């Protein structure tokens, strides 16, 4: 049949199929050949669903209309098997439908499959039953209503039921299809260990590829290659850089079949994925990779128009926003504006009601770029907006999903930034809380874990020092010492130096001079190594004041003198004056000592 042809222009082939079915319907009238008429309506529905030309939303409406006509003849009573087949197709169409409420369409789709499964029992029609289970799995994996984690479990369960009948020996192509779908569900799965789920996903795709070879099933092969690329780009185990190369390689294989002419929609999808792999790529020149990424997204958007594929269009806009927010070339402020604009476009489609998970993701991304803009422009408004966006995103994000973890981590960052202005310790406590939640939820093997792992001690040290000053020294010192220990092995020496300084200051507050001196000296040495002038000045001021307190006046005066000088150079006269007060007092003490010695 034309609609399955691969060679030749696929779009053109589909037009021919539709023309042929329409012609046939003029011959096989409903009155004369009801069964043939119904079959042709069914096939017409399939052709419209796959149609490339014309308005996609409209095509899907046509498809649904054709199936519904077909079902007027293919009733459950008269032709149960045909009825089930068309119900199945109707379910698929509802699953892809653009018009109408997306969540509602998916509910329709699930309802239709479940209806069909009442007739197509496993005993009576094992093959159809398995096909319906497969499609039900698809619908559950896209479902919006209900608990997402639970929906994905339902989806996996349905695929696994399907595979009981669709064995590799009996139905190799169907088996491979469901393996492919199972791979997708595992890669989205929320429950269980994420690292392990992704391994399962990769394994399923690789099984599918044993049957879906390029020669035998080029289109299916390309689809699974595409999916494999996605799984590799999310993969947690193994070398991250290498995984991303694998991912890019898989996408490029997929694009050999998924050409723009033959499969424009699929081509655009894989371009989108390729863009995403390039934007995360570790090997190669980062600036160049990001340009590649933007170029791929822009190609994808040529097909993924807002009108034809609103959902996909929004996804690529979201990704484009990511790439612009990371972009190295071009003007930074301008890139951030581009990024914000792209997220805002994405959010026009990704509404909280229709696509809660995607909405939460884009909200989180928008918040992150607003935070970047806030540090560029020191805008409080952007930071406040970011915090509000993140909190809203967290209301929706499925607990422990990657979105959820990202948003918690970002919220931690945003709140600790706000603390810098507000000096309100509850911001810090909330930030710490957010980091802890993120850290608990993220797979211990995840490559992003390190970032969060480092944010935690940094915040701990600030909060710890705050608590010590507030008199909760026991708790505060514990936080500080923990943070110093954690940061001492990390690759953020500045954060380490800050934590050492805070620990010195906490000991000073507690009049534990020996320890204060030890930590101030450590901080000083590290700041000096990092050429951090402000750090040097404040560590010297601390060290000088401790030495004076211990009675080592001469050494103390020397440090205080240098601190005062540094503050002057940093144009911080207030700080210099503070140091000067201690300096003067110490000098008077020294003069007294000298006089007493002469007496």
């Amino acid at each position: 049949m034309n609609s399955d042809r691969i060679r030749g222009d696929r779009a053109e082939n589909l037009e021919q199929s539709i023309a042929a079915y329409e012609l046939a319907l003029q011959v096989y009238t409903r009155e004369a050949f009801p069964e043939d008429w119904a079959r042709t309506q069914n096939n017409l529905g399939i052709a419209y669903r796959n149609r490339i030309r014309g308005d996609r939303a409209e095509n899907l409406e046509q498809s649904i209309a054709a199936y519904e006509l077909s079902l007027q003849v293919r009733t459950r009573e008269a032709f149960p098997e045909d009825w089930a087949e068309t119900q199945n197709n109707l379910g698929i169409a509802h699953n892809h439908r653009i018009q109408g409420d997306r969540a509602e369409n998916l509910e329709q789709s699930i309802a239709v499959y479940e209806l069909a499964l009442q007739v197509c029992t496993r005993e009576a029609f094992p093959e159809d039953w398995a096909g319906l289970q497969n499609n039900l799995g698809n619908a559950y994996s896209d479902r919006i209503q209900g608990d997402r984690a639970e929906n994905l479990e339902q989806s996996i369960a349905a695929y696994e039921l399907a595979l009981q009948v669709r064995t590799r020996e009996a139905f190799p192509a169907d088996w491979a299809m469901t393996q492919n779908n199972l791979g997708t569900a595992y890669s989205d799965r929320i429950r269980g260990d994420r690292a392990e789920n992704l391994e399962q996903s990769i394994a399923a795709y690789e099984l599918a590829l044993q049957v879906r070879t390029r020669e035998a099933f080029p289109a299916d092969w390309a689809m699974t290659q595409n999916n494999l690329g996605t799984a590799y780009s999310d993969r947690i185990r193994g070398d991250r850089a290498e995984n991303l190369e694998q991912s890019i390689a898989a996408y490029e294989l997929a694009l050999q079949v998924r050409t723009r002419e033959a499969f424009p929609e699929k081509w655009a999808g894989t371009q989108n994925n390729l863009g995403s792999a390039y934007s995360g790529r570790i090997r190669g020149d980062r600036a160049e990779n990001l340009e590649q990424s933007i170029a791929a997204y822009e190609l994808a958007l040529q097909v993924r128009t807002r009108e034809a594929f609103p959902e996909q269009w929004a996804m690529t806009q979201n990704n484009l926003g990511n790439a612009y927010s990371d972009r190295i070339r071009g003007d930074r402020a301008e890139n951030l504006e581009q990024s914000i604009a792209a997220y805002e476009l994405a959010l026009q489609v990704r509404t909280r009601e229709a696509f809660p998970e995607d909405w939460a993701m884009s909200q989180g991304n928008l918040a992150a770029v607003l935070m970047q803009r806030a540090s560029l422009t020191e805008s409080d408004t952007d930071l406040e907006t970011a915090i509000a966006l993140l909190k809203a995103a967290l209301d929706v994000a499925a607990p422990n999903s990657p979105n959820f973890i990202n948003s918690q981590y970002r919220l931690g960052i945003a709140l600790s930034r706000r603390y810098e202005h507000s000096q309100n310790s509850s911001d810090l406590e909330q930030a710490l809380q957010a980091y802890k939640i993120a850290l608990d939820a993220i797979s211990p093997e995840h490559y992003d874990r390190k970032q969060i792992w480092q944010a935690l001690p940094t915040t701990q040290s600030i909060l710890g020092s705050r608590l010590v000053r507030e008199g909760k020294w026991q708790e505060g010192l514990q936080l500080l010492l923990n943070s110093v220990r954690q940061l001492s092995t990390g690759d953020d020496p500045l954060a380490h130096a800050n934590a050492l300084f805070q620990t010195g200051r906490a000991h000073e507050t507690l009049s534990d001079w020996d320890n204060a001196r030890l930590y101030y000296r450590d901080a000083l040495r590290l700041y000096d190594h990092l050429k951090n002038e402000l750090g040097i000045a404040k560590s010297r001021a601390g060290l000088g004041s401790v030495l004076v307190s211990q009675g080592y006046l001469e050494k103390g005066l020397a440090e205080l003198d240098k601190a005062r000088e540094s503050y002057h150079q940093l144009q911080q006269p207030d700080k210099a004056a503070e140091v000067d007060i201690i300096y003067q007092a110490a000098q008077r003490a020294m003069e007294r000592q000298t006089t007493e010695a002469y007496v």
Partner: protein
Amino acid sequence: MTTADDIFDQSSSNIQRLGLKEIPFTESPIDLRSETLQRIFTGRQNELRQMFNLFQSRERRRILVYGRLGIGKSAFLLEVLSVLRRKRPKMLTTYISLPANLDLATTALIAVARAMPDDNWAQSQLYQMGIPTEQALKERSTKASANMVFGAELSEKDLPITKPQYPTVSLETLLERAQEKYPEGVVIAIDDLDKQNPSVVRQLMHDAQGMLKGRAWFLLTGHPMGMTGDLLTSERGLFDLQLKLEELDLPTTYQMLINYLSSARINNNCTDPKDPRCVLPFLPETAKRFCEVSLGKPRLFNRLGNTVLSTAADLQAKVITPDVLEQGLRAAALTLHQQAALTVQEERVRVLLLQRGTLSDDTITMDDLEQIGFRSFSDAYLILERLEEADLAHQLNQDAAKAFAPIPLPPSDDEFLSLGGS
């Protein structure tokens, strides 16, 4: 053919050739009998005086004895207890080394219960915690009564002890019972607080404040850094006396050597420093040199003494000439290094210390720190303390700095190897 018995005899005769019954040095004072300790314990008059002044009052006191590792805290504590046992027969004195993972109240409870073998309730407390009681009883009955509490040391620190549910209350009850029999009070000496992680100790002390202010005398030993640092300043008034033990001066160390040797010498028990025979088998010059390298640190003194005498015996020497002493110290350097079983990182710190001569928080450079894989001296400090514990380094009394230097022993042959590149 030489039999094992022959070797044993030869070994004894090698020691006897030096004029000694046995090697008197031991690094753990807990192994000493009270009367031996009394003979060899030297110096610390000021500290003893301060301590005993407190005992002239009926008021219960809390005393912290602190000082660096190997400075003689345990020996000091044991000496105090042994004096108290002679002078205050109606006072119960108990001693325990702080076991890992145990709170102070439970630790004190165990110490007191083990010192009350005739008290059934006390024994049932121990029994419930899975601590063998019968054996402890036998041990006590075979030992001299003055030595009784020494059996109370928990030699296996990692015994899985089931803590009593309310240790503080159990301890209170036990102390009430004890006071009926010992109207002059109960002294609980808890040793080795410094062998635990400082933050653990900090928490332990914090949690035990109520108990410490309760109805017993407490003698605790600790460490100047970590445990005391912030604790002393924040918990002011927790201790009535904080007694710092410092290194012994050279004349006192010399006297200590005399006391040790005379406790084991076969022919004479001369203890007059002016008489050169008092340091035999050392010569006065080698005795002096030995005391200098011991740095006034009792544990190092004992460790070195042990190896020096063994080496001299192996050499079948009669007296310790400068040459014999050098060989002994060289062997000691090797032994200390081997016994320390350092990790790679600790070894790196040790090599750096040998290269630099001293390492201090004031003068160490970032390059030095990077060479040992650190970014802060506070991290290196922990390892330097570990080296200090193994007598591979000692802390210098420097103003306004934490400074360490290697123990000034002649380099052993392997020392040259490990320093080959420097």
